[in-house]
Every structure is written in C-alpha cells, then in structure tokens.
C-alpha cells in the first residue's frame, strides 16, 4: 500500500492546482463577458453600415469598387492567422493552426506565392515549428483588441492590395457562432465580394420603395468611402470573434480541469484513508504480536 504521507502531499498539490484552474475559469468568464459586449457593439456598427449600403443600392447605384472584384490572375496570397497569446485554452490554438496548415498546403499546391502574417504567440510558435516563415507578427492583441490597432493593420493591407502587391487576403480565425459553438474558418477578406451580408439581403428585398435619402456629396463618393470602411470593420470583427472564442475555450477547458481535479482529490482521499487505516491496523497487529510474544 502506498505511503500515506506521499498521498497526502499529492492531494495537497492537486488542491492547489484546482484553486488555480478555478480562478482562471472565473477570470475567463469575466473577460468573455467584456469581449462579448464589445462584439455586440461592433455588430451594431456593421448592421448600420450594411443599412447604408442597402440604401445606396436602392438608389439605383451600381455597386462596383476595385476592392469588390476578384482579380483575373491571382499570384500573391496573404494569409493572416489569428490565435491566442497564451495556452491553457483547450483545442483553441490547435484547431485554428490545423485549419491554417490545410489551407496553406492547398494554396501551395495551387502554385500561389504565399506570405504569412500571424497574431498571437501560440500561432507564431506553431507556424515556426512547422518551418513556415512569418512576415508580420503581432502579440499585442488580447481579450480586447483595439480598433485603432486593427485599423492600422487594415490600412496596411489596403495599401498593399491597391498597389497590386497582394491579390488576395485570407484570414484564418475562430468564428464565434454562438456560446456553445465556435468553428475555425478561413475567410477571404480581400477582394470583399458582396457587401451586404446574406442575413440582411432578405430584409432589403422586402421593401422595394425607392430610397428617400439625399446623398451628400453624392452616392459614388459615399460608396468609395464605405467599401474600405466595411473591410476594416470586417477585419475588426475577425479579431473580436477570435478574442471571444478564446475566452470561451479557456472557460470550458478550465471548468473541465477544475472538475477533473475534484475527481482526483476524491480518489486520492479514499486511497489515503485506506492507506492510513491499513497503517494503523498494521501497527496494532505489531503491538499485539509483541505482547503475545512476551506472554509466551
């Protein structure tokens, strides 16, 4: 039977670990709530932008813009990977990296020249481990990405795209579907494709009344400005989604870890009590044996 003292020591250390995982779970929960609020605000902004676009479309303006059209010949593809700075969040980093690898492989097979950017220490080290070169990397994005910072990155990409240095931008990140479902996805952000997202198109076609708006200075000028803006917001949304998903993943992982620790403590307690009991029994037997020997 195992040594009772060693068992007690192990139980203590498991208890300490449980304390840590419990705290991490609580922190992740608080951060998740904050990140979720920000995501909701961003959704509000996107919805309003979409509304303006659909009003523009209703005014009979042909929605065309260089950022919306895909290029005939695609040569340079930029891939941006969004991951976490820290681990201990279950399969979050692993699954986003895995989908990045498959995407990189398929892009490589198609003969594109690929440049990789990455955000998050885990993603960076994961890519480096597989021998990929990283062009640009960021580690300053945590649970609350700032729009200012994301805008800088977005402006950089817009510049490169307009200058013809990149023909396509793909973002690999974890999309937040709902609280119990987050999926790693690859999204093509440049060219933008359709401006009005699918969920809103149904609404727009419901009322076919011509737009009542006056456009200042004119519809074309607004369109020219709104397309880069929606790209920036879309990229920002990717960062926010990744942040929210990370916190959820950490929350779930830490909850499981805490539960596991409790289970282990229960098992260890039982073994410890048994060991203690058998130790006591053993000692009594020894004493009785000694007394009997003296009597005899």
């Amino acid at each position, binding site marked *: 039977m195992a040594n009772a003292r060693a068992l007690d020591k192990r139980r203590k250390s498991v208890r300490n670990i449980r304390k840590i995982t419990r705290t991490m779970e609580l922190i992740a929960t608080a951060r998740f709530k904050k990140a979720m609020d920000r995501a909701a*605000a961003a959704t509000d902004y996107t919805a309003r932008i979409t509304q303006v676009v659909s009003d523009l479309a209703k005014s009979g303006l042909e929605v065309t813009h260089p950022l919306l059209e895909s290029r005939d010949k695609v040569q340079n593809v930029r891939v941006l990977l969004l991951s976490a700075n820290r681990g201990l969040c279950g399969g979050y980093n692993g699954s986003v990296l895995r989908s990045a690898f498959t995407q990189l492989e398929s892009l490589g097979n198609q003969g594109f020249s690929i440049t990789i950017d990455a955000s998050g220490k885990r993603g960076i080290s994961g890519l480096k481990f597989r021998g990929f070169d990283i062009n640009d990397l960021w580690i300053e994005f945590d649970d609350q990405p700032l729009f200012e910072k994301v805008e800088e990155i977005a402006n950089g990409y817009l510049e490169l795209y307009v200058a013809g240095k990149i023909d396509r931008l793909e973002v690999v990140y974890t999309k937040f579907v709902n609280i119990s479902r987050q999926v790693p996805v690859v999204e093509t952000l440049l060219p933008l494709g359709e401006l009005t997202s699918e969920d809103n198109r149904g609404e727009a076609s419901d009322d076919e009344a011509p737009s009542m708006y006056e456009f200042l200075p004119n519809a074309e000028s607004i369109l020219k400005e709104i397309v880069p803006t929606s790209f920036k917001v879309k990229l920002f949304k990717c960062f926010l989604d990744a942040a929210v998903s990370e916190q959820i993943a950490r929350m779930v992982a830490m909850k499981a870890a805490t539960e596991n620790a409790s289970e282990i403590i229960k098992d260890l307690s039982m073994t410890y009590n048994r060991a203690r009991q058998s130790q006591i029994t053993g000692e009594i037997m020894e004493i009785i044996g000694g007394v009997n020997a003296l009597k005899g």
Partner: protein
Amino acid sequence: MAEFTCTVVTPETTVLNEKVSSLVLPLFDGQAGVLNNHSSFIGRLTYGELRFTVDGQEKSYYIDGGFAQVDNNVATILTGRVLKIDELDSQKAKEQLEEAFGRKANSPELMELRDREMAQARAQIRLVEKVGT
C-alpha cells in the same frame, strides 16, 4: 427648441445616444447643420469637429471621418474614432503632417493616401488651436 435623437457609434462602442437640439456635422464638402425635422440624407464625413447642443450647452468631439445618416429625426453617426478635444495631441498631428509632406506619392492611390493623412493632421491641429485660443 425641439429635440431629436443623436447616436454616435464606433466599432468599439456607442459613444453617445442623447436628445440634442442642434447638430453640426463635418461633411466631406463643408459643415452641415441639422435641426429637428431635417430631411433624410446620408452624408460622407471628413476629419473634424462634431458639434451638438444638449440642454442648451454646446459640446464637441473630434471624429475621424465616417458616415452620417439622418432619417425620421434620428441622426446616426458612424465613425472609426471619437476623441474629446482635449485628448487631441497637436504635437503628434504636426509630426504626421511633416511626415506626409516629405513622403513620395507617385501614383494616384498613394497621393490620395497622403492627402488623407494631411487632412487628418490639419483637422486635429485646427481643432486644438481653436480650443486653445
């Protein structure tokens, strides 16, 4: 004075959602005033001062371009960044202006980018000076 709702939204948060009695927007081709029952319009904003009156008091913000939509007595302002005037850094803006001046712009796209940075810096400097005097 009759009031209407003014909402200022950035991708991060809703900055303002209040009843205002008047509103002055920095539109792309000049300032535009909005009062109650203004006709519907969608306007492109530029860098500059957003001024509005709440309870007889005039307040202002610096906004970083974006769009304004006025419809049915609701004014919605969509912008990338909103700052209070005293949060502006005129020194940094001057540096940005200098840097933009020195930059080479040999294509229409780059030229537009440079003009944009200049306009942004100039608007910030102008606002800071206006408050300072």
